[in-house]
């Protein structure tokens, strides 16, 4: 049913429709509204037969989910930012044990300096932990991806992260079609665990594995994600057939046919990118974009097919791999090995810095004029950088960078102006 709801609420209702039996909650902005919503549904009985557990840390949150999943029930939790780093050890453990937990990430920057706004540093930090990572472009997709995620996770016995841009999606009210329970039940069968802690058929899970087998165990995790490359499009297709809309899949192209320049990006920024693409097209520029949904597994072949014909690729990333630059770019480049085309990385939107259509258009203009470097920073305030570097050159005790800059901007740590 079509409704105008907050993104977090849409995700919460979608998760509830998946009939989870254990939900672990630990508050961290901007994920909190999701578990708050679920908590309410458990309490008022809309989500029956589900245990909602308020834990004492993110580490405990995922650990509880590990226990409940191993005991054979559908398990869910959500986190963000520092939270996913705090549970990092358990993130690897869940995938190592092959437990099909679904976890929402309300994408947010990582401190210091502490920053509650959106970027992708958090989920990117755990990108190689053996979880499947899906990035939502809209709240509709955020909701739909959770339904697909449980199906995918349980088929492969592999945990899945659904990454939803903090605030931009989680706190945005927009139109979302929330499916009915029957529709979801028809798409998502009851959880049939591969392994379970069962007193009538005891096993030991989580053995210590030495050099003689560890390598193979790791490889098999990789093999699961290879299989996911096939299943993700199939599940998306089946979803489209049942629910009548496109959601998920490995990636989505926009006006890429005959495009000379193609922008690749994850998550909600693809909306603004499409606006920019349309404007460029209106100006007669052959520009297109690719929204990468499945970052892990990384769809090398699909990406190659989407970009193969272009002259240049601009990868827009909401995470700065300090010391190298882009992370998504590496995968894109790998997908294009052997194909000679210009590749540019653009780091944008860190710590909630707005990515505006205007900035994107001028970026694409410069791209068209081949003015982009290998690594570029969108709307980075060079003047501020220069002043701080000057300070540092001037005196050893130049003071805390973040506070210095805020002083320059004449803003207070709390106040955030819209533009």
């Amino acid at each position, binding site marked *: 049913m079509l409704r105008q709801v907050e993104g977090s609420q849409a995700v919460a209702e979608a998760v509830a429709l998946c009939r989870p039996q254990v939900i672990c909650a630990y508050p961290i902005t901007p994920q909190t509204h999701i578990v708050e919503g679920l908590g309410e549904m458990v309490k008022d009985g809309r989500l029956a037969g589900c245990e909602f557990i308020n834990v004492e840390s993110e580490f*405990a949150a995922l650990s509880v989910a590990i226990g409940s999943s191993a005991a054979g029930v559908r398990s869910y939790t959500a986190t963000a930012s520092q939270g996913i780093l705090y549970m990092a050890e358990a993130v690897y453990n869940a995938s190592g044990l092959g437990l099909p937990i679904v976890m929402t990430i309300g994408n947010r920057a990582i401190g210091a300096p502490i920053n509650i706004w959106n970027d992708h540093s958090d989920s990117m930090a755990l990108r190689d932990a053996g979880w499947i990572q899906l990035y939502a472009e809209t709240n509709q997709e955020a909701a739909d991806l959770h339904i697909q995620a449980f199906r995918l996770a349980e088929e492969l016995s592999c945990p899945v992260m659904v990454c939803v841009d903090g605030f931009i999606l989680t706190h945005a009210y927009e139109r979302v079609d929330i499916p009915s329970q029957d529709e979801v039940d028809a798409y998502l069968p009851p959880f049939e665990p591969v392994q379970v802690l069962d007193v009538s058929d005891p096993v030991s899970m989580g053995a210590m594995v030495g050099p003689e087998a560890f390598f193979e165990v790791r490889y098999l995790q990789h093999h699961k994600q290879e299989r996911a490359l096939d299943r993700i499009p199939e599940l998306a297709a089946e979803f489209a057939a049942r629910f009548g809309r496109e959601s998920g899949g490995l990636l989505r192209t926009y006006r890429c046919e005959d495009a000379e320049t193609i922008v690749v990006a994850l998550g909600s920024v693809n909306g603004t990118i499409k606006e920019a693409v349309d404007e460029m097209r209106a100006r007669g520029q052959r520009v297109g974009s690719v929204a990468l949904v499945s970052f892990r597994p990384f769809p090398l072949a699909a990406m190659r097919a989407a970009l193969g014909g272009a002259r240049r690729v601009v990868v827009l990333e909401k995470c700065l791999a300090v010391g190298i630059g882009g992370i998504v770019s590496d995968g894109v480049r790998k997908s294009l090995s052997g194909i000679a085309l210009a590749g540019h990385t653009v780091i944008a939107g860190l710590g909630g810095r707005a990515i505006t259509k205007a900035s994107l258009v001028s970026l694409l203009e410069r791209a068209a004029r081949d003015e982009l470097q290998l690594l570029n920073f969108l709307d980075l305030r060079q003047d501020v950088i220069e002043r701080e570097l000057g300070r540092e050159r001037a005196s050893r005790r130049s003071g805390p960078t973040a506070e210095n800059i805020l002083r320059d901007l004449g803003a207070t740590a709390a106040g955030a102006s819209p533009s």
Partner: protein
Amino acid sequence: MSVQEVKFYQTGTFTVGNRLLAENERAVQANMRRTNSLNSGHRACQGCGEALGARYAIDAAMHATGDRVVAVNATGCLEVFSTPYPETSWQIPWIHSLFGNAAAVASGVAAAMRAKGRKDVRVIAQGGDGGTTDIGFGCLSGMFERNDDVLYICYDNEAYMNTGVQRSSATPPAARTATTMAVGDEPGNRFGTGKNVPLIAMAHRIPYVATASVANLRDLEDKVRRAIAIEGARYIHIHVPCPLGWGSAPSDTIKVARMAVESGLFPVFEAEDGVVTSRYKLRRPVPVEEYLKLQRRFAHLFGKNPDTATLARIQAMADQNIGFFEL
């Protein structure tokens, strides 16, 4: 202590079994068909107190529940020596996740059992002192505070043995470990204020807290039997000597544990809803030296000119226990 009052049976209830006792009065460990939850072939050291304590506890739990027990194990010696691929020694559904999250994983299993309507299946979390009093402490406290339906058993061998005997918050003062060497002007572990996790557990007002020792099987089994039947968060802290880490003879494991109890250094008691309800009265009290000198980790206190000052401080700790718990 609810050990049956000793009728005169030659050995009463001190021995594991006693042919003169009625079948139902005998220890689970005396049973010919006991479950051996921790099976032969495990890789624990010779005379391992933890291997002993774990089998005692889990066998008792299996006996009390008709084998409906699931265990969650923290990283540590017990986990490593019991489940090295390709073999496991466990006879029950068992899972190892991480070092510091056993209590939380157990909360998850318990929640799952509740969701499945299987409250008959009892959930046990177990770990060493490191995984319990240090790195797992947060999850433990959370599990207590929520009063989750989990029995947490800590096998306390007073240091990180798995990694080569490093100091933990359960390591006693003056004890030599790899990170508190017996050198300098305060050899061994420094005297801190102590971290009495059983008392901390009691401060959570959980329904059941107990300490036990491998030197007192009946008492241990009895406590597990009682604890497993109670709903909510429960904690049993079992003292398990480690021949390797303590530098005691493998054959002395039980003797050492006994001396710890009889010296008053390891008080054995029971508490319900935060209040001590029973304690083991010392049967043959001994000075702490009797206990300490069995262990090379305290060797620097003895020798030609014994460190009488330190010995006195340790004796004072024992005396304080004896006074506080009315041992």
